[in-house]
């Protein structure tokens, strides 16, 4: 027995007698001898709870978290403040431990929470139909691409270079399997420049705000796509949607995005959740669980998983997606967070980030040797380029306890000393001032350009 199992010696003899075998070994008789492991797994002995705790603590101590530094790292996941009530609710056994609501009569809590979540996402995106979550942002973009493919059968995606590099890579990975071709639309002065769209374009995929923080003209982009008969997919940062013109208002067909900023921890990249919302016309092709309102036989209001015929457990090879387990608990954290922020609060939060981002952009842009990568409106993130080796600058900032942002060079070689700086409500003016000072000093100490005027 371990601390999680309960078979005593007495239990064992009674159970074996009932089954009619002499030993547990006999229950494995169907496994050919050649396939039986003849040694224990090389995993070491089991440890006590205390020993495991200490080991995990030692590992945690070897990582520098957002607790240990003032971090301006963003690029898809953000160090927001997660209010205490979220854990107190999502760690309740009744939310934490059940499975997908296949028996709706005893899953009304989870199903109603999904319905409330779907409503919140619909409000944020301005699109009428949301599902109950998908895995996360980048795979949601690819999943939206799949919906476009099965809707219009065309063979090409046009993806903006302003879409998160991970999302672009997911689209390429799946497009290869679908024998579809991916064309990249370049950025010009920080925003997407769409090429002429032929009638072979299945979907145009853009991000809002884009990876360099710029607010795109989604209406214009969606308009061009529509003229070519293509769908528009917009990958959106959810909090800025509290202020920005919604994907729905802009004529976007599918809005997806990374939900981590909504009440979920950083967790080194996951688990979080992806949101997926679309027009009514696409409802029956959407992936993922969808909760719907209905009544029971006594006329009481209730909720069920609906439109299940889209899904793998019924439609199997013709399913709109293979998704089974999604991110229900993380989506629950999301709707609790949105309820906690509230109608007023979300606008105040995002306006605060907007102002601080503007302040940070002004302070950093004013530093000699720092240039803004573009001057488009931004909401909570912006890109700069340094006249100094970015790795060196980051190392010097780090010595001051500051992580100044994400270096762009790997995915955007055209900006070898580019840096993406992100804001959350946790970064105060004092933090921004420290950043400006540290960055300024680091750049000054490492200027590259020889100023000869030549």
């Amino acid at each position, binding site marked *: 027995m371990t601390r999680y199992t309960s078979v005593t010696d007495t239990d064992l003899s009674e159970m074996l007698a009932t089954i009619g075998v002499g030993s547990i070994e006999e229950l494995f008789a169907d496994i050919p001898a050649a396939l039986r492991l003849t040694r224990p797994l090389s995993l070491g002995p089991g440890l006590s709870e205390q020993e495991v705790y200490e080991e995990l603590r030692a590992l945690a101590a070897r990582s520098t978290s957002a607790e240990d530094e003032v971090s301006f790292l963003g690029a898809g996941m953000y160090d927001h403040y997660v209010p205490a009530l979220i854990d107190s609710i999502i760690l309740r056994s009744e939310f934490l431990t059940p499975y997908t609501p296949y028996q709706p009569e005893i899953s009304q809590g989870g199903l109603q929470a999904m319905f409330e979540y779907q409503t919140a996402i619909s409000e944020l995106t301005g699109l009428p139909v949301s599902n109950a979550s998908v895995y996360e942002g980048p795979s949601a973009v690819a999943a939206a691409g799949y919906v476009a493919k099965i809707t219009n059968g065309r063979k090409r995606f046009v993806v903006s270079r302003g879409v998160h590099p991970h999302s672009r890579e997911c689209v390429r990975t799946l497009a290869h399997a679908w024998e579809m071709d991916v064309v990249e639309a370049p950025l010009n002065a920080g925003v997407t420049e769409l090429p002429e769209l032929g009638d072979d374009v299945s979907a145009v995929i853009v991000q809002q705000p884009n990876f360099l923080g710029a607010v795109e003209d989604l209406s214009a982009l969606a308009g061009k796509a529509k003229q070519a008969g293509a769908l528009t997919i917009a990958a959106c940062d959810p909090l800025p949607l509290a202020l920005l013109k919604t994907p729905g208002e802009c004529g976007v067909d599918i809005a997806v995005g990374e939900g981590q900023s909504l009440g979920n921890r950083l967790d080194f990249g996951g688990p979080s959740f992806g949101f997926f919302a679309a027009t009514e016309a696409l409802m*029956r092709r959407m992936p993922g669980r969808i909760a719907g309102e209905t009544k029971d036989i006594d006329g009481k209001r209730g909720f069920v998983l609906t439109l*299940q*015929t889209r899904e793998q457990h*019924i*439609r199997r090879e*013709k399913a709109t997606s293979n998704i089974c387990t999604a991110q229900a608990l993380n989506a629950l954290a999301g709707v609790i967070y949105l309820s906690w922020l509230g109608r007023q609060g979300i606008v105040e939060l995002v306006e605060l980030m907007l102002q601080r981002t503007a302040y940070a952009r002004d302070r950093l842009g004013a530093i000699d040797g720092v240039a803004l990568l573009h001057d488009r409106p931004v909401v909570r993130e912006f890109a700069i380029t340094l006249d100094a080796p970015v790795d060196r600058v980051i190392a010097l900032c780090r010595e001051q306890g500051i992580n100044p942002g994400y270096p762009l060079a790997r995915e955007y070689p055209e900006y070898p000393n580019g840096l993406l700086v992100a804001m959350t409500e946790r970064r105060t003016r004092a933090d921004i001032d420290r950043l400006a000072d540290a960055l300024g000093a680091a750049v000054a100490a490492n200027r590259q350009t020889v100023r000869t005027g030549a």
Partner: protein
Amino acid sequence: MADPSYPEDLKYHPEHDWARIDGETATFGVTWYAQDALGEVVFFDAPDVGAEVSKDQPYTEVESVKAVSDVFAPLSGEVTAVNDALADKPETINEDPYGEGWLVKVKLSDPSEVDALMDSAEYQASLEQ
């Protein structure tokens, strides 16, 4: 519709579809057996008027809560009409599969294909197997 019924004046296809022939045009639908196996119908994905249908090929789908079923064309031709009322009341397919629950009307491209279909007695016999 509570009790099985297979009207005499219709022709039947092994994939549980019926056809009512009227000269060069026909009306298609699904049989009592099909709607019973499916359960309460919740959605009928209507094809477009003008679409081509081919004998023995699926031309649309019918969904219940827990299942999806291909609907097969008993004969070939061009869709001239679609039962729009089913968008609002798909359960009509269960209640009146041979009457108000009709799916499409088709202008036949090869009326001789009718010879390959079964009559009511033959179809019912095939269900016994």
